[in-house]
């Protein structure tokens, strides 16, 4: 029972990662590798800030800003430096590894005996693990509501159009490069936030905690799409959060089946590869259309 509650909480906190990745991977239609550096960057910044006596709420916001800064860097490298965005993301991700070590001063920084966001009297009064459910639900609700609001503004529509058809966007006076930077900043901001929250929930930040998070984010997006089918764009954001929770349950089941935690990454990678590559699975789960949406239309 408590394992299930923990899975929901973790799923919601990782849901922000899925939503952040959705902005670049699905709306702007490119794979943003920055993610793997941004997630531990957000964690390192939040945990370091807290150990330096900064209020956990402020530290969490710093994680968000740190993520946006990483996204801005990738965006500028790609749009001003004309480096392909995949490589720009890898460069920033690689650079962030050293920066994360500098930020923490070591490879692993604990929050032992430090107050974090989950240490309020109210959250402490709840049953075990449900603190992360409450925090995750609140943050996800606020973030998704704000994003849905944004996507329905003029700017948000321009953002979607820039990802959908850059040629058409340019002919309407929308600069796709600006939208790309905007998307990378928003997306990585949310991923930094996710990292900051996960680190506080786990009680530590680790320089290696970013390895494979892009697969976690993709899994959330694809599970959401497969399970909930054709949805409006706003609904797909919610589906991604729910997909992230479902992914945690999948991991839980895999562990119950007797696999070691060390094997989780290879299992996740194999399952995702099969879902994308095998035509029979693909057509049954309607991934074909979903994938075409994700990898084409890039002008």
């Amino acid at each position, binding site marked *: 029972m408590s394992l299930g509650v923990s899975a929901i909480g973790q799923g919601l906190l990782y849901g922000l990662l899925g939503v952040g990745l959705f902005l670049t991977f699905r709306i702007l239609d490119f794979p943003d590798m920055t993610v793997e550096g941004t997630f531990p960057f957000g964690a390192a910044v939040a945990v370091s800030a807290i150990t330096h006596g900064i209020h956990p709420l402020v530290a969490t916001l710093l994680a968000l800003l740190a993520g946006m800064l990483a996204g801005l860097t990738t965006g500028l490298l790609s749009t001003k430096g004309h480096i392909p965005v995949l490589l720009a993301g890898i460069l920033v991700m690689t650079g962030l590894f050293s920066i994360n070590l500098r930020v923490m001063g070591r490879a692993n920084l604990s929050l032992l005996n430090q107050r974090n966001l989950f240490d309020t009297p109210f959250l402490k009064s709840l049953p075990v693990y449900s603190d992360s459910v409450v925090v995750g639900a609140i943050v996800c609700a606020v973030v998704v509501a704000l994003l849905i609001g944004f996507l329905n*503004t003029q700017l948000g529509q321009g953002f*979607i159009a820039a990802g959908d*058809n850059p040629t*058409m966007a340019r002919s*309407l006076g929308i600069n796709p490069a600006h939208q790309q930077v905007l998307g990378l900043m928003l997306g990585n901001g949310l991923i930094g936030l996710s990292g900051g929250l996960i680190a506080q929930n786990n009680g530590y930040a680790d320089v290696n905690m970013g390895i494979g998070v892009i697969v976690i984010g993709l899994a959330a997006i694809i599970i959401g799409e497969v399970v909930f089918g054709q949805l409006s764009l706003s609904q797909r954001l919610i589906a991604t959060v729910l997909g992230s929770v479902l992914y945690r349950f999948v991991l839980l089941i895999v562990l119950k089946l007797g696999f070691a935690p060390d094997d989780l990454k290879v299992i996740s990678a194999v399952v995702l590869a099969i879902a994308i590559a095998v035509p029979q699975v693909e057509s049954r789960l309607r991934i074909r259309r979903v994938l075409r949406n994700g990898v084409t239309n890039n002008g």
Partner: protein
Amino acid sequence: MADVQLQLSHVQVNVAVGEEVRPLLTDISLDVAPGDFVTVLGNNGAGKSTLFNAITGDKPLAGGTITLAGTEISRMAPEKRARLIARVFQDPKMGTAPRMSVAENLALATRRGQRLTLGSRKLRQQLPEFQKLAAQTGNGLDKALDKPTEQLSGGQRQALSLLMATMRQPELLLLDEHTAALDPHTSASIMALTEQIVAREKLTCLMITHQLEDALKYGNRLIVLDAGRIVADYDRAAKAKLTQADLLQYFG
């Protein structure tokens, strides 16, 4: 109103092929009066699309100036020029955002060239207006306002692109073989719609076409490009006397 809406003066566009620099447009000078509908003919590689790309800013000028409605636009960024210039592409997929609905595409086009803000897109309030606008295409576009444009037919998409290009009156409308990808029947209906809108809005318009028949039938002026130069320029009177046989001499 000025006598000249669009003025190209000694426009030169080059392309680098390896070490070598080749001219795509050589010393193009052209004055287009307000309300002129100019059809543009020429062989493949004559420079027709390059001419459009130079006007929109997608290809930088190596020399010369371009003035539109009294403003020099030669150095203006393409996104800035979008306020003045609207374009319909040959490929029906190029002009619309495929995953966005017809109404959403139209709403975007109402803001062409304007600063996008965090204000509401006001989609619902504009629906009756969009309905009326789409109904004039006569191809069922008004019944498809909620559909993603990727589900539309080619003809519906080009009609939508045309509406999007003209709903905020542009200083210049560029039609880049916009019916070439359509079947003859659909092509004819899109051309009819084009003529109707251009006449009603008194638009200044350049239209590239490979259909000699369309080039003669539509517009009040005809120019022929060859190897990056304007080799013939027929005004309304001269164009009226032209035959397809006359034009065939330019295609060898």
